[in-house]
């Protein structure tokens, strides 16, 4: 019932007319690397840095080769409760999609970003750049426990 309402609501939208004005405006961040040359031609969100552990309570974390499904399930629940307001699976939303995050970041970095977002955007260079890339929308500290953050990380491994 609800879904059909949703679908109908989406139908019959106005055609894409080019009304009003538009400015050919491009973001300069990707084109003119000002601060860091070389590597930073890639967006911060796409860059790969598996060495940095970020800033926060997690200094060392080794992942087992097998995914802990039970923990991942718990992590999924926490993620859906606490994170989906800004993060969506498979697409950029307010913040980046978490898919394949461990191919780009260390597990410590990911957990520190969840547990200590204020500290990260102040002190971690990559987190600082990410804040800019995502329009200055700060990652909210959702008050997760370390155990919850660890479970969310395990869930990310399943994506």
């Amino acid at each position, binding site marked *: 019932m609800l879904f059909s309402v949703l679908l109908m*609501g*989406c139908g019959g939208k106005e055609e894409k007319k080019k009304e009003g004005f538009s400015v050919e405006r491009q973001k300069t961040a990707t084109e003119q690397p000002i601060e860091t040359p070389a590597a930073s031609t890639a967006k911060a969100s796409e860059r790969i840095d598996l060495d940095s552990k970020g800033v926060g309570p997690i200094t060392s974390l080794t992942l087992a080769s097998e995914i802990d499904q039970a923990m991942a399930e718990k992590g999924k629940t926490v993620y859906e409760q606490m994170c989906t307001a800004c993060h969506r699976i498979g697409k950029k939303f307010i913040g980046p999609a978490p898919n394949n995050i461990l191919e780009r970041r260390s597990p410590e970095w990911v957990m520190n970003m969840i547990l200590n977002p204020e500290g990260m955007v102040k002190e971690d260079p990559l987190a600082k750049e990410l804040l800019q890339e995502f329009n200055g929308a700060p990652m909210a500290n959702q008050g997760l426990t370390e155990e919850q953050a660890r479970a969310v990380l395990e869930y990310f491994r399943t994506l």
Partner: protein
Amino acid sequence: MKKFSYLLMSIMGLALISSCNNQSKGAANGALSSSAAEKVYVAPGEHDEYYAFISGGFSGQLSVYGLPSGRLFKVIPVFSQDAEKAWGYNEETKPMLNTSHGFVPWDDAHHPDISQTNGELDGRFVFINGNNTPRIAKIDLTTFETTEIIEVPNSAGNHSSSFVTENTEYVVAGTRFSVPVPQRDMPIKDYKGNFKGALSFISVDPEEGHMDIKFQLLMPGFDYDLSHPGRGKSHGWFFFTTYNTEEASSLLEVNASQNDKDFIAAVNWKKIEEYVNNGGGTKMPANYAHNVYDDETHTATSTMKKEVLVVNPSDVPGAVYFLPTPKSPHGCDVDPSGEYIVGNGKLSADLTVHSFTKMLAAIDGKKFDGEAYGIPILKFEDVLAGTVKSGGLGPLHSEFDAEGNAYTTFFISSEVVKWKLGTWEVVDRQPCYYSVGHLMIPGGNSRKPFGKYVVAMNKITKDRYLPTGPEVTQSAQLYDISGEKMELLLDFPTIGEPHYAAGIAADIVKARSRKIFNLTENKHKYAATSDADVRIERNGKEVHIYMTMIRSHFNPDNIEGIKVGDKVYFHVTNLEQDYDVPHGVSMIGANTSELLIMPGQTETFVWEPKQVGVWPFYCTDFCSALHQEMQGYVRVSPADSDLDLSWSLGD
């Protein structure tokens, strides 16, 4: 510790000397004021040493100040609607202001009192009375929000309230105006002998703190002005000042001042409690509201109660006595030991102090001086401990320090007078600017006063502040009482009329102060605790929007399919789980206030769109760098439109 060393310094008189070194500008009393400035200076980022809960009087609210700085932290809405916080405007809190007379959006908030355990302040709750439409409210000091309000039946001008017993067994509410009980249509001139004064003992659940009227004592038709509990040796008793023992119903200014002495009523509530527990008392029909706010549903419910247990004092022999007390006494104050009961005879120059020990002896000896409506009157001389010949005029209210001193305000002579318990000698007096009413020493109504400061609350300020037209600010004044002489440190403006106050060491309260509401504990009927719950449902003309908010967007932020004539409920949940990240929301043309929603909380406002168009809503509390982007639109179609509901975010 730092504060403690200040205390030591001032005792040793060093503060004065050291302040001389810091002298800069040559004010006439420069040395003194420099010292005073240091004593009230709380450096940026530092915390005050005490909380002061100062009632707003006719504002209906309770304000939270820090001492010694006099800085205002919060105005807690209690009995009056507050658009800033949506109190009494949002759907969740409207039931809090329900009464047997319907929705009453204002009251006259008078006497805050902090809950106690073993006669010491425990910092769990503040109770406060609404005078006009008799109510007692409870403020929870984990959230600093009003979480319960109970109406008091058979009462009118609920003034000798809301004081707690030594273990918060009861919060007590006495009527100022006597009325027919039960209310009925009768000539006013038949007041005498027919009206009753109800003294209500409201039990407080030891765990949850829920209030329930245990019994009402139906006393003679006097005016019951103020009250205080016995403590220590007098625990189990409660004392009420009375005036208008003449039982006048007109021109009380003259007619209620005829008797040379009125009474302090001494009520042995333990005895009555036992009587009631054994089946005593009469259940009489009543109609009064009991309103409870739940921190998990974030919603208040109002229940009408239909019965109250009343007790006739003559049915419980030995439970109530009258202590003759001169000149229409106002304040009725009990010292930290529980021995002395101070009657502040407001039309007198002197204070009358009764002895609890002597009172018991007089009762034992049955030395009565007659009776009033079956209640024995004790002989004045038999219960009198002493008289304070103050030299002032119009004593109103006394509080105590831990060193055996009392501090009394004098309204007419506008001063605070310090005197010694036992010797009754006046030690010091300091002027108030102007016309002081009540005063407060943190813990000054308990077994353990903190005794470092006294706050005097003034009725008139006249020239003390920059003028603001005919209506000028009211104010409080802070005195250092750590030395032999009191020292005026600070004037600070207050909200409404600063009627009365209660204070407590900040350390007892601040560690328990809540930071957020847990989303996982949110049981609001219309909560959307994650984006998966976001939806809009239509039920005829009623539309419910389950909306979320987080830095810095609403979900949904585009809504279509609303029609003129709909009643649209915005149920908005703040998904933040971080300290101090509230969001607000308001809708153009909504006939209500904004919502101010704390992390993890859900609140609801109603919008009844009257005009076709596309109407924005936005976040009203600056929440992030993208606060100005936190906005959305609702499309409103004509009443007969067949456009279906739809909603989206970012599509």
